[in-house]
């Protein structure tokens, strides 16, 4: 069975493009061009060159000896935290900016929650000399000041989203509204595998460089190209999509997703969409999302701004529904525990998002000879303010 998107943009019952007519021409233009442009040899060459020389790829696949000893299994960390700008997000923004450039777009818009995607977008816009406007919830602007400053230093304009709950979902709404008003010269760089088709598929393809490298690196290091387990955190799901991509049809590999449980899935402060969500539509995609009985979208909670999203990509909703992937809810506290644990035994400070994936090690017992690859999607520098509050507790 295949988990690829079908030609209408669906993964089983999930996906599609549920958008108002005013957006249809923009999305349709992208849909008809993204595969054609991104498969041209000169596109591939520039994409690969930028990933190699500008971003610093391939990122290492690191055998974490101390971590492996602690959990009595074989753990490899995919070091996406070592990318330029500090996370996997830039793989996607490089791909989309090359598309935008070839489609003749002069004005780039993006949404951001924690600011990582905003920084990655501002970075590639600076590189290509394109105008950049990043929508960010007013609440997030206040709590992610360093990333706001980075975006501004890179020349981007940061526009506060003042509607609704003033966080990521509202920043996304504002970016969509901007796109409706600027259909001709503007390209919308979405940061995750969410939104209307073709975004989930396009973003997954650009992020799939992660699993492509894992295959080669495992072959070199252990003599076979697959692990028993792949672990990644899921907010919208772009780093997980990239980690799983080349293994989706390889049933020897189990796919584990860590979701942000916040204060716990039995509280009203959570972002564990696969447990608390029901089928519906968010940002133009039919998928699982957290909502009231009356279909109003709920503002989630997570200590990690990157996982603080009330939906989940349609690919992930499909993987869960088909039983291909398994989800683990990880609380705020468990994630912070994992961050300090990794820092102390491997000398790596992970992003709070990635710490959720590490926490699966506490929830599931892997055998001694099994190979577990964990995507360390980002570095923890941006979370130091949060970590500092816990310094005396560990």
């Amino acid at each position, binding site marked *: 069975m295949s988990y690829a998107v079908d030609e209408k943009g669906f993964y089983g019952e999930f996906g*599609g493009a549920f958008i108002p007519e005013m957006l249809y021409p923009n999305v349709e233009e992208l849909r008809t061009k993204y595969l054609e442009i991104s498969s041209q040899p000169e596109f591939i060459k520039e994409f690969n060159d930028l990933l190699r020389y500008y971003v610093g790829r391939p990122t290492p696949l690191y055998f974490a000896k101390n971590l492996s000893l602690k959990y009595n299994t074989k753990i490899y960390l995919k070091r996406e935290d070592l990318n330029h700008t500090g996370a996997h997000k830039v793989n996607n923004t490089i791909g989309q900016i090359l598309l935008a450039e070839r489609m003749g777009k002069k004005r780039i818009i993006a949404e951001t929650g924690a600011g990582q995607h905003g920084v990655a977008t501002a970075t590639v816009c600076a590189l290509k000399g394109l105008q950049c406007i990043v929508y960010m919830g007013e609440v997030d602007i206040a709590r992610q000041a360093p990333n706001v400053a980075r975006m501004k230093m890179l020349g981007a304009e940061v526009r506060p989203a003042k509607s609704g709950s003033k966080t990521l979902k509202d920043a996304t709404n504002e970016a969509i509204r901007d796109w409706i008003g600027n259909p001709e010269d503007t390209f919308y760089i979405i940061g995750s595998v969410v939104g209307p088709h073709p975004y989930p598929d396009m973003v997954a393809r650009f992020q799939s460089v992660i699993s492509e490298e894992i295959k080669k690196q495992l072959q070199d290091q252990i003599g076979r190209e697959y692990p028993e387990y792949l672990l990644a955190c899921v907010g919208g799901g772009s780093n997980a999509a990239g980690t799983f991509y080349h293994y989706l049809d390889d049933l020897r590999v189990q796919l584990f997703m860590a979701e942000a449980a916040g204060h716990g899935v039995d509280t009203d402060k959570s972002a564990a969409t696969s447990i608390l969500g029901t089928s519906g539509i968010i940002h133009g995609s039919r998928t699982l999302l957290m909502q009231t009985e009356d279909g109003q979208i709920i503002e989630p909670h997570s200590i990690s701004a990157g996982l603080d999203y009330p939906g989940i990509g349609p690919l992930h909703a499909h993987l869960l529904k088909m039983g291909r992937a398994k989800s683990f809810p990880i609380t705020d506290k468990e994630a912070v525990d994992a961050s300090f644990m990794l820092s102390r035994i491997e000398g790596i400070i992970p992003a709070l998002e990635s710490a959720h994936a590490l926490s699966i090690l506490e929830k599931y017992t892997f055998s001694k000879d099994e190979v577990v690859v964990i995507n360390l999607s980002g570095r923890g520098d941006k979370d130091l303010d949060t970590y500092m509050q816990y310094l005396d507790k560990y």
Partner: protein
Amino acid sequence: MELKSEKFENIFSGKNHLLSIYITAGYPKLNDTVPTLIALEKCGIDFVEIGMPYSDPMADGTTIQQSSEKAIKNGMTLKILFAQLTEARKHVSIPFVYMGYLNQLMQFGLEKFCIECNKAEIDALIIPDLPMDVYEKEYKELFDRYKLGLSFLISPQSGEKRIKQADRLSFPFIYQVSSNSITGAKSEIKDSQKDYFKRIDKMNLDKPKMIGFGISNRETYNQAIERAQGAIIGSAFIKAVTEPGILEENIERFVKTIR
């Protein structure tokens, strides 16, 4: 199946140009929906577009977003809306067009939604994020069974093929969005918009056209109806009922400024 609506046939076959008003249900106060509808009929409005407030209205500007947030805070739900409309039907006979986003219908249950629409004598639907091809494949049969037509949107960016598809699928009218924009009052119609109104008008579409988005006053209304059967005013009306004072008086005063 051919949809028919005597009510709409009557208003569209008349000589006069139509004026429709968009209201946010449950705004400014939860129980203002019924008196608003009564007042609008009394002022001679031809039909009402009743907006079910949504937490994430993608196609709407600040005014409708804020009215929606307030209405949700007021406690507005679909269940309450249907109760209000059933009550309103004791006094009001002009057509009701329900406007809401698809997610709310999915949660409420599609068939249950249709049954409630029939009970409240809702005449047609606008679901801005339901694409035409998905409608045809998954929803049309059900909506047809309950005699609920959908009015699809067209915009200045819509190609000829899309416009013809909207003309074929829409009932009772085509919702012509006046510019590349989200909802929100604008004070004037630009020349490029007038060209677009003319271009669409010359296509001689089968279904009547109602122009909406950015229609806010007598001048913009008059410019819209030169090239369409009527126009819909939303944000400017929401602003008018946000003003302090007596609801019915605010409504009457606003409608008088239009025609």
